């Protein structure tokens, strides 16, 4: 059941959804959004693609590495907890913030951002892994 309309739509929508997921992820610290919802949007981009083109083609996508995404995300979230311990000796998961640049282009990065990126990757990997595995079994 391959529809031309969905295929063309998916081709254009997938990069758009991936970028959108990154935007939602980045604005998450002070406004609604965050790693979890960003990961869901990013994962749904790949699932949309799989729905349009089938599993075989989706497996060849470079971004479709769910297992790698899961472990990299987990490791990232864990590592983010160590920074404060190494620099200040504070307990696990204490936040460390660094400001890069100033004025309108100021960028505040810190360990919560790294943690959230870990969440983003893990959620995306998990969602894609679950849905694609079920698709493979059922279809």
């Amino acid at each position, binding site marked *: 059941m391959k529809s031309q309309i969905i295929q063309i739509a998916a081709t254009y929508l997938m990069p758009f959804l991936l970028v959108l997921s990154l935007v939602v992820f980045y604005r998450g610290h002070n406004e609604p959004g965050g790693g979890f919802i960003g990961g869901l949007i990013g994962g749904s981009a790949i699932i949309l693609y799989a729905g349009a083109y089938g599993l075989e083609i989706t497996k060849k996508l470079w971004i479709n590495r769910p297992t790698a995404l899961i472990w990299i995300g987990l490791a990232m979230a864990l590592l983010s907890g160590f920074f404060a311990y190494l620099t200040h000796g504070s307990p696990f998961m204490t936040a460390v913030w660094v400001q890069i640049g100033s004025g309108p282009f100021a960028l505040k990065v810190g360990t919560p951002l790294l943690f959230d990126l870990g969440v983003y990757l893990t959620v995306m990997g998990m969602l894609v892994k*679950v849905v694609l*595995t*079920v698709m493979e079994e059922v279809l």
Partner: protein
Amino acid sequence: MTTLLAILIGFLFSVSIYLLLRRSIVKLVLGLLFLSYATSLLLFVTGGLTVGKPAFVESQTQIASKVVSDPLPQALILTAIVIGFGVAAFAMVLIYRFHRETGTIDMDELSETNQK
């Protein structure tokens, strides 16, 4: 409003328990989903209801100048939803395996006496 929501929570719980007690495994999973919705709503209501006050502080200020709603229950619900997401994924696969193993969705297929 709280009373109304309390009645709704009770209704959701009764729906979920009714579904859990059915023989069909699909309804069992639906019951589990309803159970998680009911508990999320319960968490939300027990935190106290505030009308039209989002749980955000204006940017540039550290402390809220006016009353905001308690963000903690919302964070708890989010966590509960995330966990529910994982559990739902597991339950779906469990149904699927069940169907492949027995060919039905009837829970009675599982019953077996101890004497083989």
